[in-house]
């Protein structure tokens, strides 16, 4: 059993308020921002919507375009953005700690490349199957994500008793290139319209057109967030080193395995919903660390909340900046995230 009193004296600096209060204050502030964003974002869009009409009970729903836009188009989108943003940002935190690498993202270990391969195959071969309301592309994407998670884990376990983070990294990076090569190869043989759809999928799209795709992803993300709740102390120690963590009573392999699987599965589910939306998983954790310090007990929940708000705002931009046309949300996150991240790098150097 771990000793709670002995944990992370090197993170909790002298003179800082006790951790419980810091967590509470951070959650309150970030939670407030996220809640406000999620409440306000559905009100803006490419067409004006009058709230008085939306909630006018005298107009039946099939006649009430305002209500249809709000409940069929916007609300599912905002919820999808919040879910995907929270998942990718917190998975980014977990992977950065697990791999002890500030440049790690949820996609570093090949999850998104596996998902992209699955999605691309479903698009190119016009796979026409559906489980309930979930269509072939997200199903194939999730299957691809699971496949790459299994391969990377198998490779990292094969070398020695523990979970070698170096092997994880190298296997992930190699798998990324390998899957990308297969994707390019099949794309080269596919016809132009399928290639176009695949490329468009890779840019990310949160227009989920209903609640079912979100509902399907929720079990995986909830399971991941429950796992994340156990992780922060271990991550604090793992971020320093496996030996340090082990000497302080962390069951290193168990913590690594929990971190790897929960973050990977959640990433797979998120990518199945919205495509591989970049930069959330790397920019949000770093931004949050800049604001609240490096303690994972604060960083992890704060990143989840801020990631949700960040992606909701980016998607709001994606659907309004060029209205009535829509920008792929992955472009917006990278356009905002890219320059910001470079600035961060230069400032830190």
């Amino acid at each position, binding site marked *: 059993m771990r000793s709670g009193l002995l944990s992370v004296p090197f993170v909790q600096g002298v003179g800082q308020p006790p951790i419980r209060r810091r967590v509470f204050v951070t959650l309150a502030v970030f939670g407030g921002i996220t809640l406000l964003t999620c409440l306000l974002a559905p009100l803006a*869009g*490419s*067409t004006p919507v009058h709230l008085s009409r939306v909630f006018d009970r005298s107009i039946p*729903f*099939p*006649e009430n*375009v305002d209500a*249809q*836009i709000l409940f*069929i*188009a*916007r609300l599912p*989108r905002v919820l999808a953005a919040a879910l995907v943003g929270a998942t990718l940002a917190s998975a980014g935190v977990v992977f950065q700690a697990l791999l002890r690498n500030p440049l790690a993202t949820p996609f570093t270990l090949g999850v998104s490349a596996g998902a992209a391969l699955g999605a691309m195959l479903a*698009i190119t071969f*016009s*796979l*026409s*199957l*559906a489980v309930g*309301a*979930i*269509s*072939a*592309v997200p199903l194939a994407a999730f299957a691809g994500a699971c496949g790459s998670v299994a391969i990377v884990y198998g490779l990292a376990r094969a070398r020695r008793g523990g979970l070698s983070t170096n092997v994880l990294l190298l296997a992930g990076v190699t798998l990324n290139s390998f899957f990308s090569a297969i994707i390019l190869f099949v794309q*080269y043989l596919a*016809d*132009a*319209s399928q290639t176009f*759809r695949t490329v*468009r*999928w890779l840019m990310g*799209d949160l*227009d*989920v*057109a*209903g609640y079912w*795709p979100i509902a399907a992803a929720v079990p995986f993300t909830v399971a991941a967030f429950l796992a994340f709740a156990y992780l922060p102390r271990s991550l604090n120690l793992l971020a320093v080193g496996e030996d340090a963590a082990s000497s302080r009573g962390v069951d290193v392999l168990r913590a690594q395995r929990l971190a790897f699987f929960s973050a990977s599965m959640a990433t797979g589910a998120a990518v199945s919903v919205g495509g591989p939306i970049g930069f959330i998983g790397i920019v949000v954790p770093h931004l949050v660390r800049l604001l609240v310090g490096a303690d994972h007990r604060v960083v992890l929940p704060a990143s989840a909340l801020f990631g949700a708000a960040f992606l909701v705002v980016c998607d709001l931009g994606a*659907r309004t900046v060029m209205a*009535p*046309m*829509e920008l792929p949300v992955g472009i917006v996150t990278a356009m905002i995230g890219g320059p910001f991240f470079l600035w961060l790098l230069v400032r830190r150097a």
Partner: protein
Amino acid sequence: MRAGRSNPGSIAAALSACLTVAFGLFAGGCGGGSTVADSRSAPAHGVVSLVPAVTEMLFAIGAGQQVAGVGSFDNYPPEVRALPRVGALIDPDLERMLSLRPRLVVLYETQTELRTQVESAGIEVFPYRHGSLSDITATLRQIGNGVGRTAEADSLAESIERRIEAVRVRVRGRRLRTLLVFSREPHTLRAIFAAGGSGFLHDMLEAAGCENIFSDLVRDSIQAGTESIIARAPDAVVELRYGTAVEESDEILEARRSWMRMGSLPAVRAGRVHVLVGDEFVVPGPRVAVAVERLARALHPDAFAPE
């Protein structure tokens, strides 16, 4: 250490063996192509067309005999299946093209590099550009001129224009607000790509007595978001299906089911979700008149009822 030193040597040996085999295959491949050698000595003749629409035009005006090579995606008329393939928009096979010794190469306007290469080989080019409905008959007349079939091309162009005009007359005064979908993720309403306010799909819709709900967006295609579709409330939805192995009844069932997710859309409530299957809808060639007629018949069946 010693094993480490011997490694580069064995790798080099393996590499050179591979190269030898590869060169052997290459030389064998070159020597075997006797038909290629024949066409090389003959004077330049024939047309290579990378553009399916223009290939169809060439066959439709009786210049099919002149077609010596076609693009990767050509599949109509059936005669093209026996012809050599010379790549397409992103992967044109210049070597194969030159080996066919064509007099004229039909390529996409955007293939500027290929155009320079073909022209430097002394071969004439016909740059093709995707455009509007009227551009189709204009292209037809130009290519007819280019292959010495001016009269045939003119009369075919006139007949296409006549047939489209006849449809316009039939549906005069009708403006059914329509969403024309040419690509969508099956079993859901995601990744919907629709005709924008320019291009031949848009023109076909107008000719068939419809108003494109995205006519204000002057682009050939747009990705239609859920919100914009609900807000623009189409009275009819037309989905185009093309390519191989498309079973019409399955597609209609799938489309009706998928659009039920937007059950409050006027088009869905009125039961006006149509699926049209056929390559003629996406190849802006001589079959475009058939496409316009089918579109108009599907959307305005009463206008075509026998009197």
